[in-house]
């Protein structure tokens, strides 16, 4: 499910989990599973960012366009 998340969605979920953890009224078991979820969202957000970086880096060189005209 997390695979379909956008960067913003993952970030928002991550923030929600972080807040829940920092508020600190979870049982230990719950807190640990929330940590796991938060890590998943963090990983997704980082992946999305990395994908964006790659897309920007592999874009066609602008120079080619200029020479056609």
């Amino acid at each position, binding site marked *: 499910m997390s695979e379909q998340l956008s*960067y913003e969605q993952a*970030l928002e979920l*991550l*923030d929600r989990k*972080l807040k829940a*953890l*920092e508020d*600190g009224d979870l049982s*230990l078991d719950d*807190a*640990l599973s929330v*940590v796991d979820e*938060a*890590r998943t969202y*963090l990983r997704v*957000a*980082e992946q999305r*960012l990395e994908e*964006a*970086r790659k897309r*920007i880096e592999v874009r066609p060189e*602008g120079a080619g366009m*200029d020479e056609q*005209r």
Partner: protein
Amino acid sequence: MVRPEEARRPLTVSELSFEIRRALRPLSTVLVKGEVTGLKRTGRGNYSFSVRDQQAVMQAFLYGDQARRLGIVPEDGQVFVFRGKVDLWKSGALNLIVDFIQFDDVGRLRAQLEAVKRRLELEGAFAPERKRRLPFLPRVVALITSPTGAVIHDLQETIRDRYPNMEILVYPAQVQGTASPGSVVLALRRCNQEGRADVVVIARGGGSFEELYAFDTEPVARAILASRIPVVTALGHTSDRTVADMVADAECRTPTEAGTRVVPLKRDLLAALAERRRRLERETTRQLAGHAERLAQRRQRLAQVPPALLRRRAERLERFRSELARLSPVRQLERREELLRERGARLEAASRRLLRQRRAELAGRDASARLERALTGRLTAAETGVGHRRRRLQALSPERVLARGYSITLDEAGHVLRSAAGTAPGRAITVRLGAGSLAARVEETRP
């Protein structure tokens, strides 16, 4: 068979020619109106052509120099009023040597022009809001002009200077003469039909009112209005704007100006693009860095969570353990003992303090008699309450001991002797008994 006049000496050809030329002298400054046909440019740059009306034809000749002075080169189909002289050339040809040319009926043309302008004005053809915007950067520029001469050269050069690989399509047209309006209209129509160009320039290198006549005609004006492609005129330096200028979407004077108008400077565009590319890259990097920073912050926060979870719980456990220890029975006993000890110490200190105070009070009262009295008084007062105490006191008092048969030995100074070593043989001693005392002398000491 020879008739008498034939017997006269025949004229030479030169003589005949001379005679004819003399006869032609009255025709040395004639005005002739006619249509030009068969115009040819001779090897020496002069023009030979025919002038005709419905019935007759006449050879005519115009020197190149003269044509340049007049600023007019006649074209086939045009009707002019020619001024010149009729001359017989040595070749035997009869020629009209032209020295002045005037368009026929200029007044009529101007009147027609005014009518066209009025009609178009009423239709709103000159309104600025009707004019189309020229494309920012055309893919193809069309030129409607004469395929030879300085105009097309200047146009192409300007455009290629500004935009080296700009595609230029030339639609050749006659820009002068009676065939010109039709030619321009056809070229413009073709340009629109092909639809390859994004802007079209109609150009010509200036000229007199008559020469620019084509651009004042209604068909040309209508063709410009009907063009889907924006039209720019560049008809040269003239005092009067032509109708074509008025209906065109942009109006320039020279080919250079038109070239500048329709095509931007490529190096400016490239510089602007490069600048935007730099901005884009900078912005992209900045954005990515910003997001990476946000994620890094969260990663750090997240990393702090599990240790904190454990630490909080460990701290709570530690608190419970110390609480539990505090509540254990052994510790309770110890605490109570501690409390007792502490209170005992305080009690002792307090009693000592009291005792000291009393002693000081007693010392303050020098009269032992008063002390005695007071003590006796108190004792008497408390006699019944403290009877048993007095009895114990009496049991311990030295008098009671003496009464039981013990004695106390004192030295000369009245000090109690507790050891035989405290005296020596021959020394006086006093022995106190239960009743009375003995004055005695030591005979011998035994350790």
